[in-house]
């Protein structure tokens, strides 16, 4: 039995092929303007990646911000349930899931693979991938550099604005004060995780902690979480696909 999960996020669209409950392959593409087109493109790509014909597909499930645009999906589920399923499959010991994507961040608490509580920030860019993207630009480095650079910082700069626009101007003024780039990078990362840390504390941490979403690929952010939460953070091999995987797992 082959099932496909498609996670149409604000920034990237992911598709996962599940064959007899094993991951057979996945695709990650930029979402662009049109949710439906992105969903279709990710679907085609994952089929060709795995060398599967359309007729072999048993069911298709959609999740993510653009889930309702995927007309060819049999069913949709929220990304919160989807991440809980996906992480439950990959890291069964995880009970606190932190997901930071391009445009939102969420914290999910699970029990026996089921969601029992969650909090979500999706009203502004503060604390999301967008924040890092903008502020990396102000530092004139790439997103990847930002993460690795932050790792070597000894004295993270204090960034007091959580708002993306203000943080950008704060970065510029820190640069004018000749603060080291790595310290600014580390400061930015400490500031992006603040909101998420508050959400974790509000819900009450339950071990283990898993970190997923595009921002989980940033080693500087991972390190900052481990420091702030005082615990090891588990990462799936590919942190971006847990939503799509979770959708594929829904029966």
């Amino acid at each position, binding site marked *: 039995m082959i099932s496909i999960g498609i996670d149409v996020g604000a920034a990237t669209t992911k598709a996962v092929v599940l064959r007899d409950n094993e991951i057979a392959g996945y695709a990650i593409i930029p979402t662009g303007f049109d949710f439906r087109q992105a969903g279709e493109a990710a679907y085609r790509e994952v089929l060709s990646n795995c060398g599967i014909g359309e007729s072999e597909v048993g069911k298709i499930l959609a999740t993510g*911000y653009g889930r309702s645009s995927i007309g060819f999906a049999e069913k*949709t*589920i*929220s*990304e*919160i*349930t989807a991440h809980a399923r996906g992480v439950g499959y990959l890291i069964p010991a995880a009970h606190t899931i932190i997901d930071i994507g391009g445009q939102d961040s969420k914290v999910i608490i699970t029990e026996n693979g*089921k*969601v*029992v*509580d*969650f909090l*979500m920030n*999706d*009203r502004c860019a503060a604390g999301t991938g967008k924040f890092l993207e903008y502020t990396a630009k102000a530092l004139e480095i790439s997103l990847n550099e930002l993460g690795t650079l932050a790792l070597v910082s000894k004295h993270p700069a204090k960034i007091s604005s959580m708002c993306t626009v203000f943080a950008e101007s704060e970065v510029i003024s820190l640069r004018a004060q000749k603060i080291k780039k790595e310290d600014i990078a580390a400061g930015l990362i400490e500031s992006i995780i603040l909101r998420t840390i508050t959400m974790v504390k509000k819900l009450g941490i339950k071990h283990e902690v898993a970190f997923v979403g595009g921002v989980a690929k940033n080693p500087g952010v991972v390190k900052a979480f481990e420091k702030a939460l005082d615990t090891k953070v588990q990462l799936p091999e590919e942190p971006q696909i847990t939503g799509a995987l979770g959708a594929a797992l829904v029966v």
Partner: protein
Amino acid sequence: MNDQMAENDIILRSLDLFKEAFPGRINQILKSKEGGKKIVGTLCLYVPDELIYACGADRVILCGGRSAPIEAAEEYLPRNLCPLIKSSFGSVIDQKCSKTKSCPHFGMVDLIVAEATCDGKKKMYELLDKYIPTHVMDLPQKPENQNALEYYIKELESLKDVLENLTGNKITDTQLRNEIKSANETRKLLRAIYELRKSDSPPIRGTEILKVVQQMHFLSPDEFKKNLVLLLDELNVTKREFSGPRIMISGCPMAAGNMKVPEIIENQGGLIVVEESCTGTRAFWDLVDENKEPMRAIAERYLKIPCACMYPNERRINQILQLAGDFNVDGVVYYTLQFCHGYNVEKYRVGEALKKSGIPLLSIESDYSGADTEQIKTRVDAFLEMLE
């Protein structure tokens, strides 16, 4: 399954009556105003209707649930203020200063009877007074204090004087007792309708009942009551049976025009079985004791309203727990209007109490714009999936 769906499509004729009655009600008020009747506007449940009607005046509610008047209001009021306050004020400004005349209610009001509840409203009333004479009734903020009741009775006595001066009529004990009796009948009818929602498969959706309760203060008490009787009759015989995760809405009022969150909840498959709000239980839950001296009995009943502007507000938490049990609630959607500090801050304690009882809570803070519809949908979907 198909059978059930077909039966749930049965239209309740009486639900339309509430809607249809509104234009007629406007004309009726305009006519009686021409005949010399005074029209009183109110913005909160702490103002006893019984006094207004006993004085021979008529009453309209001025609470705004629509986003259209907000822009006009923001010329006077800060942006970061509760949308209900802005919408209400905006409607007055619109009536008094522009030709569009958004809400026909506001132009007919001779006196506003306001109340000292939240800070935003109190300050808004100072501005409102410039356009329509406004009497602000004080409220004891610690209603359980020993002298709170006596103080509130005094405030009601002053209100009585104000109303008598406005209308030139005296409020007699007999009239007051009649109004109490009539208002209690309405309360009992609403409770009987809510009683039906306790069933495993209630005959009515939350979005339907909300539109009824929203009309409570728009229609004349007699017409509202007459329609409630018809609705109750219809509900008692209908074959409609709704199901889905059972949701309680708790929090800020959803004034007429504000349906966003309940519509999302029920479109996504939830079933609202009770609303702990001023467009829900708080509007009718307790009766006025008909055996007591009327002014005192009124004061006792109204002071029981568990609004978040009161301190301490343990009674609201107890009420929520009680309702959650009685209506067999699976989860609570805690609804707050943006910048409503009272209900926003109280959320923490409500959440803690519910957690102890094992009832999950989803918090939604919103305004009157449609900008956050998709985000709310995601949260609601996740919450409903969690409850299933």
